């Protein structure tokens, strides 16, 4: 047996439409007074949630030396093949034999998957919460070892965006 489902029949009150219109107007008026969701970007910046995968950094150890041992694990794990490491023997005498002579990441190739972070045995490479690092040329978006170490200095004291000195706009 098929059941007949009666669709909604508007009552006379509904057919006047005016009450419904007033109701609609009230809804939009409430929205008019509500807090706005816009973030005024250069002046105020969105603080990304915990675990956000943004720009990479290369960590330093307690002596201020690069943690990376140039094992190429990150490069091997990278699905986008954006990490380019040239290893060399370490100039320091602290038990590590290798260190990266050059460490380059092509940010235009990178897909920010975080696999490098997981593959790293030394916890040397990490993704930070920095998301605004656009530039005008492809060359400028290949970040080298010094750049990655700089990022570490900028972000080691936790959140980059709530740190007020980074919020001043350079005109």
């Amino acid at each position: 047996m098929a059941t007949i489902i009666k669709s909604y029949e508007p009552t006379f009150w509904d057919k006047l439409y005016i009450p419904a219109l007033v109701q609609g107007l009230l809804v939009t008026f409430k929205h008019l007074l509500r807090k706005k969701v816009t973030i005024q970007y250069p002046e105020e910046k969105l603080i990304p949630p915990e675990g956000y995968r943004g720009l990479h950094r290369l960590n330093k150890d307690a002596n201020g030396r690069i943690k990376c041992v140039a094992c190429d694990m990150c490069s091997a794990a990278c699905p986008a093949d954006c990490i380019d490491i040239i290893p060399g023997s370490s100039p320091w005498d602290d038990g590590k034999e290798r260190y990266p002579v050059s460490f380059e990441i092509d940010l235009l190739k990178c897909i920010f998957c975080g696999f490098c972070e997981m593959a790293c045995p030394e916890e040397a490479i990490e993704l930070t919460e920095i998301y605004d690092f656009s530039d005008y040329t492809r060359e400028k978006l290949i970040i080298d070892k010094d750049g990655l170490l700089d990022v570490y200095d900028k972000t080691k004291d936790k959140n980059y965006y709530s740190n007020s000195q980074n919020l001043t706009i350079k005109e």
Partner: protein
Amino acid sequence: MDFLALLIICVKVLLVFAATMLTVLLMIYAERRISAFIQGRLGPNRVGPHGLLQPIADGIKFLMKEDIIPAGVDKPIYLLAPAMLLIPALMTFAVIPFGSDITLFGRNIPLQVADVNVGILYILALTSIGVYGLVLAGWASNSKYPLIGGLRSSAQLISYELTMGLAIVSIVLLSGSLRLNDIISQQQGHFLSWNVFKQPLAFLIFLIAVYAETNRLPFDLTEAEQELVGGYHTEYSSMKFAMFYMAEYANMITAAALTVTLFFGGWDLPFLNETSMGMLGVVLSVAAFILKTAFFLFLFIWVRWTFPRFRYDQLMNLGWKVMLPLALFNIFITAGYLALTI
């Protein structure tokens, strides 16, 4: 007519013109800000304090843009159409009184550009002339979307002008005059003497018809950016496009002022006798008029960002099968009441 009288008229004309244009600019700003607020955004807030200079920046941009005349347009009419829309829109405000009489240099100056004894008909005539701008712009563009927009606007405006006229007739029946000054003086006194309370149905019909007349949502089928890509002004660019824009807002301002005049006592403040209060009364009356008009302008924007657009058949059904009989019914009741009481 002596020199001083001529000067006073010129000053009044300039004043009203400047006020209208300024309000147009403010309205463009207000529309963008309020629409943004309703949608939880901020809207333009970079140019000047709170973005108040944004419309001026827009104006400069419009002036600097290339004035494109597409190939295949009917040139004379294509060039004429924006003016044909804008001029009636700006002329309409001439008969609306915006304050009680002012006494300056020993003269009684009514705050109104022209006190025409057929004031309401003058407004109706000019709004019906405004259609030509839309229709001819649509036709002269030699393009599908503008043509459809133009056709729609002509049908829509004729349908709703009838309703609007009939709603006004019931007001005219009450006041016994077509002069807007008489209609205002007849509404003076306390709150309940305003025509909204005497003629609520007429007010509702008039308000809806006015939205259709000014091509505002929910009746902006002539523009309908989603289906007609801007309708009649699709092919227009630069300052000519800006003229369409200005005309739309000028029409809104006049419509709001007319609503206030016909149904909310014009410049009248309830429980006050402005004419006996001298200069203060004049200032108060002008302020009251501006405030009331501002509310209706806000309502225009508020409604636009609340209701979805009508479908074309719904529009026609509403106009001819609901609004027109209701307006006739209202006239019947009003005339019957007046015949019985007088």
